[in-house]
């Protein structure tokens, strides 16, 4: 019987703790446990043998921490060196671990061996500094070693970051044919350390086709039970539960877990009854715990096997561990939580799209991420649940651009994204890098489209928008669109893509060119819901194309579609009429408890939407408008009121020329603000806001004067970077804002930048000044190296340095030309050097 068959039909018993047993046998705290695979082989063989004797079906090889970041790999890292743990290669520790487990299994005459993959110990970008593909590559090396050394399955466990989980699963799937199971460590609140939830874990893992999923570590069986129940309620694949022996306690400098075997077994009874299909233990559990658990299991009544009510069959059989039923939740996720697309409709913001938007196209060409991110966050603020991301413009490398924008967006928003592209290469790149399970926009009934998109969904997971058009175009009848939808559903099933992962778009055709447009769309929508049982989506506002006062039609049509069962709308979340329809619909249908959302949005007078903005200086404060005329702009900049500065700049230009306005109002205001900051009477946020107000005013003046006119021209180029090894860059970013607002042309290379990258930018941009930032003493050598390289290869270039660790003496010592003690200091230095 194959291991998956056994998991589905009978259930599987996994082993218990390893690290805690090794510690009991003398492993010191902080010592790498995998070293014992080589130095204490008898201990490993004995532990595996005891677990098998206790009744385990699966023993876990001692490879939890075996990864290329901890163990050298001669071909990559130049060979073993130095510390004890560095003496052994990855190949050696993994090979030895598998051989001990295999030996124990062959002696016992039963059992499977799992290759254990734990967290890498590094944090992925954007939180940390590990690139996603480097993480995939690290796991891939372990998987290849383990599969080659005789593993029967891959067990990914104790994961606390969805992104790392995805990297490990992809590596496993891409580098072996073994079954892959993955369990995660939740805290008592039911969250991963990076914010993931039960629903997002299920969505991600099932999307990536894990063969089983579950929970381990973190909690004892009783505390894990409610989370296990929720997991079983969402998961369609078998669920594995491996708790600790209670909560940790520190005793004599040691972490101990002291739930005795009998209590552990008793608590596991509830976990088994809840529907876990694989059971075992984690920290603190011993062969005695597993034996006690097996005894309890034997006394429990037989449970029906994994009975499946859906169309994708998976076994029958009977066993003591019962199966969980197939689920139909449509889930997409961001990096943390999932969004469910259900009867309670969701809004997909459509604004990240360059079509017909010149400014947006320019931002994409210049890779001005800030502009794009603000468009995304504004939609989130306006109530979007999911953000559509379309970056398709001619003449760009869409694959790298889409992947880049997706990563940037996911660093600032927790919302799920809808990847919107017709380029399969761009879709593949973005789906791979995506942190979570995305929405895909779109596939259609053309064979070529399905052939391109479905394999990607099969591999990476996702929910797909399906357009009801095919090689013959868009059918004019509802019947024709339902026929295409049916065909798409059938074709998707060939890839194992279920109905819950499809959203059918019955296509809005404007009523201005055919009065039956809306009727046909809605009839098709209803029939698809009823006849096919698939959820739906529409790009709602297309319905009114070519008509005046489109908002009116859009709002009413949206309400009609919602009543016909529309699950998701691709729309502008700021559209007032459509939002009215949306909120009223949810209140009327009972989705809005106590009409709370509706009341909050529409009560009169409206409640302050965001107290934060109210409290923030420079945003709400318009009381200080009295001055006007000669001092209006001066005051607006000094107070940091951006909108007012724009208004006053235009006003001032009506009576005076640009240079006078700049020299008599703007510069004095900035100087006064700078002096107040120096004295410490004005704070950093106020300095930033004044600078931003000045920038907005400069933009007005520049527009009025036209390019090439004196006074408003950019002053000079400055390259900024946080040096190699340093990931703290808020200081550098504040300097950037100030320099830009003093009208310098800033080339920002970001953080963790190598000396060579800085040199390359300086040579390419011919910048006379470089600003380097370092926060930690450990990264100062990298700063010194960068300065040395610049002075050697780009003579004449001046380097200013700053950052928490810097002093004037230190700066001089490492060869810097200037030291800037704060953001204003950097401005002063720029004025001197450019």
């Amino acid at each position: 019987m194959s291991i998956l068959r056994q998991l589905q039909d009978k259930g599987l018993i996994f082993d218990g703790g390893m690290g805690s047993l090794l510690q009991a046998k003398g492993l010191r705290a902080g010592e790498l446990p995998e070293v014992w695979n080589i130095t204490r082989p008898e201990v490993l063989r004995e532990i595996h043998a005891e677990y098998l004797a206790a009744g385990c079906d699966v023993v876990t090889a001692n490879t939890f921490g075996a990864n290329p970041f901890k163990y050298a790999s001669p071909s990559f890292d130049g060979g073993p060196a130095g510390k004890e743990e560095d003496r052994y290669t990855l190949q050696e520790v993994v090979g030895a671990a598998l051989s001990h487990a295999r030996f124990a299994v062959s002696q016992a005459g039963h059992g499977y061996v799992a290759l254990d993959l734990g967290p890498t110990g590094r944090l992925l970008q954007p939180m940390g500094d590990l690139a996603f593909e480097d993480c995939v590559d690290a796991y891939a090396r372990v998987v290849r070693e383990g599969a080659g050394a005789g593993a029967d399955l891959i067990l990914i466990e104790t994961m606390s970051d969805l992104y790392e989980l995805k990297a490990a699963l992809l590596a496993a799937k891409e580098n072996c044919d073994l079954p892959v199971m993955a369990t995660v460590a939740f805290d008592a609140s039911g969250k991963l350390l990076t914010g993931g939830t039960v629903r997002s874990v299920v969505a991600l893992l099932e999307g990536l086709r894990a063969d089983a999923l579950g929970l381990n570590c973190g909690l004892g069986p009783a505390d894990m039970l409610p989370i296990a129940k929720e997991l079983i309620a969402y998961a369609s694949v078998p669920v594995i539960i491996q708790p600790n022996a209670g909560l940790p306690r520190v005793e004599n400098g040691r972490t101990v877990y002291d739930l005795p075997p009998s209590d552990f077994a008793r608590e596991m009874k509830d976990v088994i009854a809840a529907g876990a299909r694989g059971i075992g233990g984690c920290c603190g559990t011993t062969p005695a715990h597993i034996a006690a658990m097996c005894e309890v299991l034997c006394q429990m009544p037989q449970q029906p096997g994994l009975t499946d009510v859906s169309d994708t069959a998976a076994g029958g059989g009977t066993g003591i561990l019962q199966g969980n039923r197939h689920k139909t939740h449509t889930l997409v996720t961001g990096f943390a939580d999932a969004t469910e697309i259900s009867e309670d409709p969701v809004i997909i913001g459509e604004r990240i799209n360059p079509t017909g938007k010149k400014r947006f196209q320019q931002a994409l060409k210049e890779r001005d991420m800030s502009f794009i991110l603000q468009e995304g966050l504004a939609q989130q603020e306006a109530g979007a649940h999911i953000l559509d991301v379309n970056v398709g413009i001619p003449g760009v490398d869409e694959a790298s651009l889409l992947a880049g924008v997706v990563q940037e967006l996911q660093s600032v928003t927790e919302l799920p994204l809808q990847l919107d592209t017709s380029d399969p290469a761009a879709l593949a790149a973005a789906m791979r890098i995506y942190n979570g399970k995305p929405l895909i926009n779109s596939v259609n009934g053309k064979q070529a489209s399905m052939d391109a998109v479905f394999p990607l969904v099969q591999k990476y997971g996702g929910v797909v928008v399906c357009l009801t058009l095919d090689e013959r175009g868009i059918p004019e009848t509802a019947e024709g669109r339902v026929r295409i939808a049916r065909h798409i559903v059938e074709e998707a099933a060939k890839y194992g893509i279920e109905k819950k992962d499809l959203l059918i778009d019955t296509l809005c055709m404007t009523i201005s060119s055919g009065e039956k447009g809306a009727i046909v769309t809605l009839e098709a929508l209803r029939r698809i819901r009823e006849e096919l049982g698939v959820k739906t989506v529409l790009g709602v506002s297309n319905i009114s194309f070519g008509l005046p006062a489109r908002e009116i039609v859009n709002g009413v049509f949206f309400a009609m579609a919602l009543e016909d069962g529309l699950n998701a709308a691709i729309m502008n979340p700021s559209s007032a009429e459509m939002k009215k329809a949306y909120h009223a619909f949810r209140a009327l249908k009972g989705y809005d408890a106590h009409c709370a959302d509706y009341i909050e949005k529409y009560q009169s007078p409206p409640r302050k939407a965001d107290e934060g903005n109210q409290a923030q200086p420079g945003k709400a404060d318009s009381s200080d408008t009295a001055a006007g005329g000669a001092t209006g702009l001066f005051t607006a900049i000094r107070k940091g009121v951006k909108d007012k500065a724009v208004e006053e700049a235009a006003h001032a230009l009506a009576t005076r020329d640009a240079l006078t306005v700049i020299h008599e109002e703007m510069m004095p205001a900035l100087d006064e603000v700078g002096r107040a900051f120096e004295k410490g009477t004005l704070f950093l946020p106020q300095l930033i806001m004044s600078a931003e107000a000045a920038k907005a005013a400069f933009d007005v003046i520049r527009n009025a004067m036209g390019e090439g006119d004196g006074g408003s021209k950019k002053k000079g180029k400055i390259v900024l970077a946080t040096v190699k090894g340093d990931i703290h860059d808020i200081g550098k970013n504040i300097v950037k804002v100030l320099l830009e607002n003093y009208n310098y042309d800033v080339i920002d290379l970001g953080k963790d930048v190598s000396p060579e990258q800085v040199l390359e930018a300086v040579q390419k941009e011919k910048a006379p000044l470089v600003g380097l930032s370092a926060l930690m003493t450990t990264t100062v050598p990298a700063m010194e190296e960068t300065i040395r390289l610049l002075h050697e290869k780009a003579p004449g270039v001046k380097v200013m340095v700053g950052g928490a660790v810097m002093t004037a003496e230190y700066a001089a010592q490492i060869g810097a030309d200037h030291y800037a003690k704060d953001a204003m200091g950097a401005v002063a230095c720029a004025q001197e050097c450019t």
Partner: protein
Amino acid sequence: MDITGVNRNEIYRYLGAKGGVSPDETMRAFTEDVLRELSGKVRPGHVSLVVPLTVTPEDRIDMTCMQIRSKSLFRNLRGCDEALLFAATLGDGADFLIRRYEKTDMARAAVCQAASAAMIEAYCDEINDAWKKEYKEKGCFLRPRFSCGYGDFPLTCQKRFLEVLQADKRLGIRLTEGLLMVPTKSVTAVIGIGSLQQHEKDTGR
């Protein structure tokens, strides 16, 4: 997290206040608002471990699970016979907010940065104060927190430190290649524990 114990003056100082200058009302309200927003996003947590301590001449410090050579740590731990190893973090919520506001509202990002730095300090102080009380009842005193990177206590110890405390698994604190902690609003420290009686003897008080 309860924000009442967060030192406001510390935040203002991070934001450039000098010589006891107080912020105006809008600045004060702005700071409070950011603190409120942060308090909904952070998930503070800590782990600790008490280890036996042997301090020998030549500045060698043996904590069984870690051996360190550091003059400044040696000075800090003199007269102690145990050490409390400690790690705390606000979680990734603060970093996320700072990252978001850096793209949309730099002034708010700067306040977020300053306020969350003060928050992690306040959180550490709160835990330390409780320990101080607890140890005083046992007749012991606690030395001030001492972190990797202070004086000549090498930052390279951070790796071992986090491993010993299982700070990755239990708090989600990990290191970058350059040995910086992420989430960035995290603290590790050694706290010396000594007997009050012995201390009085040694100092003649």
